[in-house]
């Protein structure tokens, strides 16, 4: 891919993030909200969430300590789980990418478990960890791990052989080769994996909270929608959407800022 072709592609991507055409975007949002308000107002039962009700509910929800505790609980668990998954996933991915024996030994497990819908292991994890926060943490790590390991392995495989040859000619030790050359070269892949992993981790956390009835955003939504407080529950959904969007934006930014030389899609 030549630079002349790559540059406009990156620039064009940049305005996908709010900025340009702001007026049209806002108008689009207002139209969507209006259609939602009117359709739900006519056809759905009165308790169903409507944009005006949601906006009215925002101040009271955001100032309720119960909501803040729930949000902190979920997002903190997701962040911790992602760190664990990144550390283990990077090491396993590196080993799979650079060592053929390891790759052949683990590929069948990692590929299979990556393709499996991760919420399916949740009941097994509750058998092992009990109906506790530990089961949620295990679900988050399990949901995030395989995307990171697979992408890291792809990245480690794709390191240009010339880099490694030069390093070997200068008698670099294996530690230098792995963490000085392979990891930086594979970083775009790791970021792509992390983006997928973060989305899966959020889903894992929410589904675990539904299943375990564990305090957090997922349970907050479940509890409030059961007691027909849909507007309040939807504020939590908005926060989750913002969090997901924030991760997406952070990855795009990091990719453009630190790794402008590479663009690649994640392996899902």
């Amino acid at each position, binding site marked *: 891919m030549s630079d002349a072709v790559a540059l406009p592609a990156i620039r064009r991507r940049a305005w*996908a993030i709010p900025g340009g055409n702001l007026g049209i975007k806002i108008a689009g949002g207002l139209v969507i909200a209006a259609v939602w308000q009117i359709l739900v107002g006519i056809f759905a039962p009165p308790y169903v969430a409507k944009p005006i009700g949601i906006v009215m509910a925002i101040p009271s929800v955001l100032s309720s300590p119960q909501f803040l505790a729930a949000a902190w609980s979920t997002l903190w668990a997701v962040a911790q789980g992602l760190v664990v998954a990144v550390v283990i996933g990077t090491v396993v991915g590196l080993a799979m990418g650079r060592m053929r024996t390891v790759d052949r030994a683990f590929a069948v497990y990692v590929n299979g478990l990556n393709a499996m*819908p991760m919420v399916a292991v949740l009941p*097994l994890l509750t058998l092992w960890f009990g109906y506790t926060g530990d089961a949620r943490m295990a679900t988050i790590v399990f949901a995030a791990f395989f995307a990171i390991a697979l992408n890291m392995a792809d990245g480690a495989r794709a390191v240009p052989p010339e880099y490694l040859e030069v390093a070997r000619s200068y008698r670099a030790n294996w530690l230098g080769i792995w963490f000085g050359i392979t990891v930086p070269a594979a970083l775009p892949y790791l970021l792509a994996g992390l983006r997928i992993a973060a989305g899966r981790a959020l889903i894992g956390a929410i589904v675990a909270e539904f299943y375990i009835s564990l305090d957090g*955003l997922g349970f907050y*939504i479940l509890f409030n929608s059961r007691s027909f407080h*849909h507007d309040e529950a939807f504020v939590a959904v908005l926060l989750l959407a913002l969090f997901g969007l924030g991760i997406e934006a952070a990855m795009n930014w990091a990719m453009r800022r630190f790794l402008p030389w590479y663009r690649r899609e994640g392996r899902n």
Partner: protein
Amino acid sequence: MKRTSLWSDWLPPAITLIAGAVLWQYAGSRTSAAFLSTFTATMSRLWGMVASGELVDALAQSLLLFVTGFALAVAVAVPLGLLLARVTVLRIATESYIMMFNSMPMAALIPFILSIMGFGFAPKVVVVFLFSVFAVLYNTMEGARSVKPELLEVARSYRSSEWRLWRDVMLPFTLPFTLTGIRQGIGRGLVGMVAAEFFLSASGIGKLITVNERDFDTAGVLAAIIVITIFGTVLMSLGRAVENRFAAWRGLSR
């Protein structure tokens, strides 16, 4: 793709699968059956499920749910994505919101669907649909955006008709991206399928897992998980195969 012999392709995974089974058998025999049942106990439980027809019923229910929801998602997302590709104002107005829905954890909407639609087949289809639709829509839109304006300008300069513009420029450029979306959508739809079977009216493989978990029948849970892993792997490989078949077209844009 370099040809490798059957020997080097199949031997290493076979060895690790056997090693995994032996390790599992050993670990299972050292702990209580409720914590981790042995490999042989799990296999005989799996055989029991097959023999009683329980497994076939569960698979059929899950597959029907998945296919219905996913087909609906593709039927809505592809035409909508193409429409947004062509009508620039609509695309600019909606793309931020589509991106938001694409990165939002759809599982958060399950309680609303439960309280509005209740139990039955339809709400579960809605869950699978919601899980997969935005992946297809978002990627189709991205694909349409990858069409270089120069190409459209050249086509127009030569007075290409709208139909030819679609057939020769828009569709070939967009299709590979749509297929990436379909592959991602399969993965997400599977998660939606299991989540719907857990939290809405219990059915299929999801029910098989939860019912056995409530009975502390770890062998049953593990057997069902093995089945869903194979189920997921087959569907994902299908998606990947279709995607790779048309991936070469994407090379044209670079």
